[in-house]
């Protein structure tokens, strides 16, 4: 078909610099640039900012968010949302702790906890699929239930005093002189690289983009959407459990208070990273940069001593600004 359209498409592709890059590249690139600029500005004023110990802290502090964001990214790509992670996170910290205190060997406790996270994820997907409700509502219900369950099983007091060996997951690390490079950072890095690569190249993982792009079409293309979503929410739940286990190890304690508003921080980071809440777009790299960006903002407050009352205002404004920027790019490019 010597169709004018294909020609037009080609013409337009050559039209502007912006069009040469995929939208994703542009968004991620823009965010990376923003991060660099921000880092330089803060660094010039507060020279500790880019010191190795501080960079380490920045990473470690937002490790739970970063790990949970891996799952959330995929959930959002499928046009879903998972609020329950903020319940699963403390829940799994508590469960792994209680199991160990009850005498379970560390690996058993961890495996059971991961399984518990996966089961909660499966319940999310089941409710959303079976009763055809938006995952926002399904996962909200589960979040509320878990918050209650967390209080009940802890009686409101922290759980602590875990066996020695457990420290390896969140506390122990390589001594770098001045700071400890925790093993948990490698857990995150491994998970991020793995999910990032799979989401880019693996046949099965890529289906999430189809489902988010157009669910009906996905179904007509032979994708079992419901079953796929079970996988996605189980993944999200499991990753939240990983984060919970790490945090329990890091603090050598677990408390129902962990993870307040965590879901919102994670969603914010993922969206800043270019994921589209309407589904079909998002990337692990983008989400990780999103988490980094937020981590830097929080850290900059600690560095600068500027009243942290402004923190909420700044994070909110940053969120809006980054969305506007992404939107502007999209429009310029179109």
């Amino acid at each position, binding site marked *: *078909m*010597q*169709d*004018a*359209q*294909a020609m*037009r*498409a*080609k*013409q*337009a592709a050559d039209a502007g610099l912006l069009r040469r890059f995929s939208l994703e590249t542009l968004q991620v690139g823009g965010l990376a640039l923003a991060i660099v600029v921000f880092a330089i500005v803060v660094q010039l004023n507060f020279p500790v900012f880019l010191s190795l110990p501080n960079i380490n802290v920045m990473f470690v502090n937002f490790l739970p968010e970063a790990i949970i964001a891996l799952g959330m990214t995929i959930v959002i790509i499928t046009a879903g949302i998972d609020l329950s992670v903020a319940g699963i996170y403390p829940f799994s910290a508590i469960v792994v702790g209680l199991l160990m205190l009850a005498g379970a060997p560390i690996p058993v406790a961890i495996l059971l906890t991961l399984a518990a996270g996966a089961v909660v994820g499966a319940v999310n997907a089941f409710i959303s699929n079976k009763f055809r409700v938006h995952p926002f509502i399904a996962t909200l219900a589960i979040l509320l239930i878990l918050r209650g369950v967390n209080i009940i099983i802890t009686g409101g007091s922290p759980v602590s005093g875990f066996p020695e060996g457990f420290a390896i997951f969140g506390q122990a690390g390589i001594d770098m002189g001045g700071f400890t490079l925790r093993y948990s950072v490698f857990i995150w890095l491994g998970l991020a690289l793995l999910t990032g690569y799979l989401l880019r*190249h*693996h*046949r*099965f993982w*890529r*289906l999430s*983009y*189809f489902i*988010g*792009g*157009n669910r*009906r*079409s*996905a*179904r*007509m*293309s*032979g*994708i*079992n959407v419901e079953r796929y979503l079970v996988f996605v929410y189980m993944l999200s739940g499991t990753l939240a459990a990983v984060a919970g286990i790490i945090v329990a190890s890091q603090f050598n304690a677990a408390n129902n208070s962990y993870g307040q508003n965590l879901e919102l921080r994670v969603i914010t980071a993922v969206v800043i990273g270019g994921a589209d809440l309407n589904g*079909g*777009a998002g990337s692990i790299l983008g989400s990780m940069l999103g988490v980094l960006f937020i981590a830097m903002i929080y850290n900059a407050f600690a560095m600068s001593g500027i009243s942290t009352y402004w923190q909420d205002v700044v994070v909110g404004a940053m969120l809006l600004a980054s969305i506007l920027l992404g939107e502007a790019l999209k429009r310029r490019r179109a």
Partner: protein
Amino acid sequence: MPPALEVKEINKSFGSHRVLHEVSFAVEAGEVHALVGENGAGKSTLMNIVGGIHNRDAGELLLKGQAIDPADVWQARQLGISVVFQELSLTPNMTVAQNIFVRREPTKALGMIDWQRLNADARALFEQIGVDISPTELVGNYSVGIQQIIEIAKAISFEAEVIIMDEPTSALSESEVDRLFGIIADLKAQGVAIVFISHKLGEVFRIADRISVLRDGEMVGATKPAESSPDEIIRLMVGRSFDDLYPPKGVVGDEVILEVRELSHPPLFHDISFSLRKGEILGIAGLVGAGRTEVARAIFGADSYSSGSIALAGERLDIKSPREAIEKGIVYLTEDRKVMGLFLSMTMRENIVSAALGRFVGALGILQHKEIAAESGRAMQRNDIRPRDDLLSVNSLSGGNQQKSLLAKCLSANPKALLADEPTRGVDVGAKVKIHQALRDLANHGVGVIVISSELPEVLGLSDRVIVFREGRISAILAGDNISQAEVMRHAVQ
């Protein structure tokens, strides 16, 4: 030898609504078997059952004599049944190649996609069927017509033994239809069994080896084209015949209603100038992607344009939104009724009056429900929308009746100029005749009507004058005896 695909005594109901009743049907290897019937007759439902989208309530599916029971699309494909869905199965945010090979991308180790082979495979596929589509472009960047072709390419790529095409030509223009028929001929030669669903009887008679007619969920007859005639098929479908598919042409006045001057919006269209007269039906023909929709949307204020002018009844307009256009009396009937035309989950009544709510408000914007009900009742009657219950949701109507509701909606806005884009897309013969008649009545009442259609006979049969588009420009304006198939094609393709 058993037929390639046989369905036996299929029953299917949605809730209490019986859609298929004891339907039996068979297609042989190397045969093109056309399935025709009115809108809502159950054609898509039957094929969706075969294709694994719906479950049947009763009956048997046999593939080469073997009973099968595909639970979903994927299983159907594994069995060798591939469907070109009436509602496309493409995802706009993914590339063409990814869409075609979803779930069966060529992989390297551990399920990692081999991107190069993926795109090469897609390229090879397009070469085989002779189209020039970029495998790496996002599907959403292509028009409905091209998407239709991608959907067909996708179905073919399964190398299935049975290919079901549910209205594959509804968004194609003549030359693409020719190409498709070439592809079908090749498939036939390879021994593929093809089910071809279409409302365009001309096409059906050209391509089909056998024709089966479905009416109200029951199989009412099967015949061979050579032993039958379109009239007879129509009689089988509708229960009566039509003397003429097109109403007599009208008397065109001199008064110009809509005047378009040098309208441009590169790269979509350039220097579009024409005038629409009172009482006239002005046809616009052209290949898919020629830019006809873009021009209509620009006139309607749905999209912007870069330069040029539009005047309505001599008054120059500066329309920035559809709302202003409707207030002035310009109404656009969209080519894509589901996405951009109708409010599917809302009632017929709400749909019909949606563009005219302004006529039914009292003080402070309070709606007058009685008058709304009366208007909607009248519109149902006038446009013969069935079932005649305007509190049903549009969702539950057949395609043809949905299309009629869309027309009713546009008419209730009392247009002075109506831009009808593919007004009969996916509509059965009976409904088509009624829509044609409605458009002519409108013209006879002094409204200027523009009909954009990819179905050449329709443009020819309906229009007083025909504008031909090619690559975003007007290549000819034909009137009187100059209006002929050959002349239009010559200007459209060149």
